[in-house]
C-alpha cells in the first residue's frame, strides 16, 4: 500500500519564441505549477481537475519522474522523486495519450518487452498477460501490429502494457480523452476495480462528469495553483448550490475573470 505525498512542488519552464507567441506573452519563463501540495491514499482515486493549461499534466509528469520539480518534492512510501526516481518507477504506472507504442510491434511482443524491462519472470509475465489481455479483450489481436489497431484498441493495449508490473500507484492523464463511449466506460470501470484492489490512483481531467463518477478526492487547479483540495462530498458543501460545476465555474471566475470561465 503506497501513499503519495506531493509537497509544495514548483515547476517553471522556459518558453521558446514560438511558445511565447502561442501564450501571447513576452515573458521568457512560465510557472506551470506553484506550491502544489496534496496527498493520495491507497484505495482512493484522487482527481486533479482544471482547465487546459492549468498545470495538471506537468504535475503528473513530476509524479511519474519524467520531469523533476524545481522546488518541493514528491514522496512515495518515503522515496523521493528527486533522488530515488529509478526505485519509484518500479511502483508506478503513468498513462497518457502522449506515451505511444511503436506501430511496428505486436501486443505480445510489447508485453514481453516491457515485462522484461520490469524484470518479471516468465511465469508472472504469462499470468499478468492472460489477466490483462482478457480484461481488455486484447487476445483476439495479440499478434496484430499496433499500427493496424483502432484507436480504442491502442488505448486499451497502452493500459495493459502500462500495468505489466502490477503497480501500486496508477497515474492517468486525461483517462477518457479521445476515447469512444465504450472504451471510456471500460477504462472507468477498470480504474474503479483497481481502487477496490487498494491501488493509489491519481487522474487529471477537465471533465466534471469524470470526477463525479470516479473520484474520492478532488483538487481543483487553476493557473498552476491548487484552489481547493478535499473529498468530493466535502468540497461540494462549499458550492452555492451543492454541485461541483457551480463551484468550479465560480472559482474560475474569481481567479481569471468571467471571460475565461
Amino acid at each position: 500500500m503506497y501513499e503519495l505525498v506531493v509537497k509544495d512542488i514548483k515547476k517553471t519552464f522556459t518558453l521558446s519564441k514560438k511558445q511565447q507567441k502561442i501564450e501571447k506573452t513576452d515573458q521568457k519563463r512560465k510557472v506551470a505549477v506553484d506550491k502544489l501540495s496534496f496527498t493520495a491514499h491507497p484505495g482512493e482515486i484522487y482527481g486533479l481537475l482544471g482547465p487546459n493549461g492549468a498545470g495538471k499534466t506537468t504535475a503528473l509528469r513530476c509524479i511519474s519522474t519524467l520531469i523533476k520539480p524545481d522546488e518541493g518534492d514528491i514522496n512515495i512510501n518515503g522515496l523521493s522523486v528527486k533522488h530515488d526516481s529509478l526505485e519509484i518507477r518500479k511502483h508506478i504506472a503513468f498513462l497518457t495519450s502522449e506515451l505511444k507504442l511503436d506501430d511496428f510491434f505486436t501486443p505480445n511482443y510489447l508485453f514481453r518487452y516491457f515485462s522484461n524491462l520490469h524484470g518479471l519472470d516468465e511465469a508472472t509475465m504469462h499470468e499478468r498477460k492472460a489477466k490483462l489481455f482478457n480484461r481488455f479483450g486484447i487476445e483476439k489481436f495479440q499478434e496484430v501490429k499496433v499500427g493496424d489497431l483502432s484507436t480504442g484498441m491502442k488505448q486499451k493495449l497502452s493500459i495493459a502494457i502500462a500495468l505489466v508490473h502490477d503497480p501500486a500507484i496508477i497515474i492517468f492523464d486525461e483517462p477518457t480523452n479521445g476515447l469512444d463511449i465504450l472504451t471510456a466506460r471500460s477504462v472507468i470501470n477498470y480504474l474503479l476495480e483497481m481502487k477496490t484492489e487498494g491501488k493509489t490512483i491519481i487522474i487529471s481531467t477537465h471533465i466534471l462528469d469524470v470526477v463525479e463518477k470516479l473520484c474520492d478526492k478532488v483538487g481543483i487547479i487553476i493557473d498552476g495553483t491548487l484552489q481547493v483540495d478535499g473529498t468530493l462530498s466535502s468540497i461540494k458543501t462549499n458550492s452555492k448550490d451543492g454541485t461541483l460545476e457551480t463551484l468550479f465555474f465560480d472559482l474560475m471566475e474569481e481567479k481569471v475573470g468571467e471571460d475565461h470561465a
Partner: protein
Amino acid sequence: MRNVMTVFKKEIYRVISDKRLVLTVFIVPGLSIFLIYSLMGTIISSQMTEAETHTAKIYAEHLPSSIETIMDDQMRYEIVEETYTRDELETMILEGNLDLVMIFDEDFTAQIEAYQGSALPSIEVLYNQSEQHSQGAFSRFQGVMATFHEQVIIERLENPEDYQVYTLSPSNIMDERAAAGAGFAMLMPMLIVIFLFAGAMSIGPDAIAGEKERGTIATLLVRPVKRSSIALGKVLSLAVLSLLSALSSFIGIILSLPRLMQMDDNLPDVSIYGVSEYLLILALLMSTVLFIVALISILSAYAKTIKEASMLIMPFYFIAIIVGVMNSFGADTSDAALVHLIPIYGPINVLSGILMFDFMLINLIITILSSLLYTAILIVVLNKMFSSEKIMFQK
C-alpha cells in the same frame, strides 16, 4: 546489464524482422554498389574496346609507301579517296567526319634520301584534340613517325649498330602480396569508413530521434530502466547493425571490383590476408563503428525529428569522407603515435597499414583504446541527454 540486453534485442529485432528495413539496410547498399560499380566498369571497358578497335579515317596527300607500311603494322585506318580543299578538311575534322589529315611534301622521300644538312621536308597534320578518335589517331600516327624516324637514322649511320647505345635489363622484383595489399590499402579504408557511417546513418536517426518524434521514448523512460542501459543498448545494437550493413556494401564492392578494374573477371585476391590480419581489422572496425554510432546517437538524441537528425549528421559524414579521401589520395600513412588519437583518421591510418602489412602494434592499440575512450565519453553524454527533460520532451 539485463536491461541493456533487452533494449539491444528489441532494437535488433525491430530491424531484422522488418522486410523493408532488411532491404534498405542490408540488401540495397551492397546491391546498388555492385550494380553501379559493375555498370561503370562495363561502360569504361566498352569505351576502351571501342577506342582500340576504331578504324581511323585519314585523308592523306603524297603518303610515302615506306610510312604506309609502318601504318599498316601499327594502326587501323582507311584512307579517304576523295580530294577536298583545306577548308573542307578542317570542317570535316571539326565535325568528326575525319580523324586525321596528313599532307606530306610532294617529294618527301626524295628529300629524306638526299638530305645533306639542308632544309627539312615537312608534314602538315590536322587533328582535333577534343575528339577521342582524332586524338587517338594522332597519337598512333606519332608512334608510326617515331618508328620511321628511327629507321631513317639507322640508315644514315655508317655503322647501324651504333644506334644501340646501351642494353637495359629490368627485373621486376615486387612482393606481389605487398603490391596487392597497396591496392587494397588505397581504396578500402576510405570505403569502409564511408560504409560504416552510411550504415549507422540509415538506422540511427530512426532508433533515437524517431522514438522522440513518435512519442515512444517516454513510454520507455517511465520504466525502471537506467538511462545508461538505454544508451548502451541502443549504441551496441546500432553498432552490430551498422557493421552488417557495411559488410553488405563491402561484399558489393569486392564482387564488382573485377569489372571496375578490368581484371578479367578474377575476384580480387582477399586471401593474401591471414587470420591475424582479419582479426586485427575486425577489432579496429568494432571500435571505430562504436565511435561512429555513439556520435550519431548523440546527434539523433539532440534532434527533435528524424529529418533534423539526418541533417545534423551530414557535416560529420562529409568530414569522414574527406579524411578517407585524404588517406586514399594523400600522403603516406603516418607512424607518429599521437595522430592515432584523432577519431576516424587514426583508424583509417592503421587500417591502411594493416592492409599493406606495415603497421605498428602500438598505433593499433592507441587507435582502439582511444576510440573506446571516446565512445565511453559519448555514452556518458548520451546518458545525460536521456536524463534531460529539456532534450527528451522539448517540443
